[in-house]
């Protein structure tokens, strides 16, 4: 009588699936590190490459990094959630940065930020469902004379009231609609 299941080594299948997820240069970088002592020390470098390539760190890419670099996934997601720099969601088409520097802050940046969150239905570090906007906060942009300011992509807007924010967002949405038609 034999109760054993035949082949149970599923590593090749797992590895193949992971190789499918990442681009060749990242795989090459991971593999080249494997022989080094403390290769896990390259985790942040690998995550930088993944974010540069995909724009964010997705669950599938982090899983692939964990398996190919043989670093526990909890460690990978722990590092990814610790650093502000790493994004866990795809970046929206337009990047909105609210300045929370001292000048903007005393001029009411918090209210501006709150209006943005309410209108977009997202928090800092998140992206709207339609993929149009990502929201984040930033330190001083050096345009304190215009405080409070918001930066959309590479353009600075200010001074803004919460009402101005709604108007500004509507403009971008309208522009997208026209482009779509």
């Amino acid at each position, binding site marked *: 009588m034999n109760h*054993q*299941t035949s082949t149970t080594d599923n590593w090749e299948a*797992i590895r193949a699936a992971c190789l499918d997820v990442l681009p060749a240069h990242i795989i090459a970088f991971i593999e080249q590190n494997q022989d080094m002592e403390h290769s896990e020390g390259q985790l942040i470098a690998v995550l930088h490459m993944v974010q540069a390539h995909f724009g964010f760190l997705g669950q599938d890419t982090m899983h692939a990094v964990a398996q190919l670099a043989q670093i*526990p996934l*909890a460690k990978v*997601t722990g590092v990814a*959630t610790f650093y502000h720099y790493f994004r866990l969601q795809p970046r929206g088409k337009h990047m909105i940065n609210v300045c929370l520097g001292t000048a903007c802050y005393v001029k009411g940046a918090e209210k501006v930020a709150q209006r943005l969150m309410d209108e977009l239905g997202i928090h800092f570090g998140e992206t709207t469902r339609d993929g149009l906007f990502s929201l984040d906060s930033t330190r001083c942009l050096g345009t304190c004379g215009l405080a409070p300011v918001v930066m959309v992509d590479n353009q600075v807007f200010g001074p803004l009231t919460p009402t101005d924010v709604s108007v500004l967002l509507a403009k971008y949405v309208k522009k997208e609609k026209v482009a779509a038609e």
Partner: protein
Amino acid sequence: MMTKQTINLTIDGTPLQVPAGTTVMKAAERLGIHLPRLCYHPNLSLEGACRVCVVQVKGFNHFMTACSQEVWEGMAVQTNSPEIRQARRDIVELLLDNHPQDCQTCDRDGNCELQRLAYQLGVRERLFEGKKKEFPTDESSKSVIRNPSKCILCGRCVRVCAEVQGVGNLSQHGRGFNTVVGPANLCNMDESVCIQCGQCVAVCPTAAFLEQDHTERVWKALAAEKKHVVVQVAPAIRATLGEMFGLPVGTPVTGKLVTALRRLGFDEVFDTNFGADLTIMEEATEFLSRVSKGENLPLLTSCSPGWVSFLEKFYPEMIRFTSTCKSPMQMTSALIKSYYAEKKGLDPKDICVVAIMPCVAKKFEAGRPEHTMANGDPYTDAVLTTRELGWMIKSYGIDFNVLPEGEFDRPMGISSGAADIFGATGGVMEAALRTAAVKLTGEELGPLEFAEVRGVTGIKEATIKINGMEINIAVSNGLNNAKKLLESIKSGEKNYHLVEIMACPGGCIMGGGQPYPPVYQDPMDPEISRARAKALYGIDAQKQLRRSHENPAIAHLYAEFLGEPNGEKAHQLLHTTYQARSPRGIR
């Protein structure tokens, strides 16, 4: 440059000499001063995060953490001063400020390290008031409850999971006030790479990790008139339950344990030892058959459900080497609901099997579909940890220490000393060797005690000569050690015949469900491990029956019910299968 081997320093004015490299905390322990600690654990890497061990050093304005600061020549340490006491109190008050104020309704009430520390440091009023963290409790796992609202971020669980168990399931996520400990992506524990060993529960100073509570279903079964409630007790319990009632670590309490279970109202009190003897019969037969064919060696043991989960998630290619034997608990349960039910004329549906286990993973094992009867019921209905049983005895109001000695019921209460030692690392190996030696030599009296496999070392190996044959064996405890062992087998560096693997460091006596350590001792303390193991070896030495195959009840069971070891009926009831499971663990 020559480094000085011995350092002279003073602690609270008392001069002492310690080896270079000693930390202030260790040096203070030599004077009998146990500095407060939360994140520190002697078996884990240094974290230095909690700061409650701060001390004053002459010539320095800032406090130093005793756990991480090494001594130097001429150092003058002050461990207690109004300033230090105030600093420690402030730290604990700030922890408490961000902690639920529900000690009276908390599972750790009375044995929580944070609560104890607050009392010790004299926190008598709450000066700080502020925002409290609130995270959902994760009860998805069949074994471990994760309650991050109670977490103080000491990181012991993260380190034990990675450094001792080699699992790496836990990590701190996020930063600052929002930091939370959990599995990857903060997914549910039952979707994580967790192997349910429960060492996170054992090392947690608070109630951030707890076992799934089965006491309520046991109280209900005991109260139900139609239910025939049968209990079985794992080998390791008799060496540890006494600690719950203030007895010194390593006090064997077999007789009182049996009486306590009868007082609680169990209809039949059986011994998992019986299943352990049976495991040896099945496993030894399996082993000898593989040796004679020279295939699928080494045989890996399968008693530890934490190890079995680890096997399926981390080393699925080693499944073919693993014994198909169910664990002693599952063998005993299967026989209670078949052999015993038949004998008693009971419908298995009316039987409730409760297992008292040192283990948190056993709760998961009991729920595995492989251990379900044809009618869909599990063979084991509830699993209580040593802690849960201790609480039930206290809750009932039973004065454990004055109980008379009781005896297990027959036939599944008869066992050999070989079964008792299952609870310590190396015990299964020794028990298997006792029987295998007799089977191989055909002589009635083979070697009885195998000192090579005893002790708390992480990996033990030996070559045993029996009848001119050399048997290479290895024993590991703590899954990080299992990793090393498995890698050496895979690479061909080592050629073993028989390998015992236990998930927890020290074996079942140090399982995730065992009593929390006494004040001034740490969880996983090797001294506790030694004392508990000594109790089991003591019980073994005093028994008439020392070898599993000498157990007359086992012989009777085969003759009357099972047929041959590894025979068809035995396979159906006593063996199981394993499969690769995801998520795949990182080795």
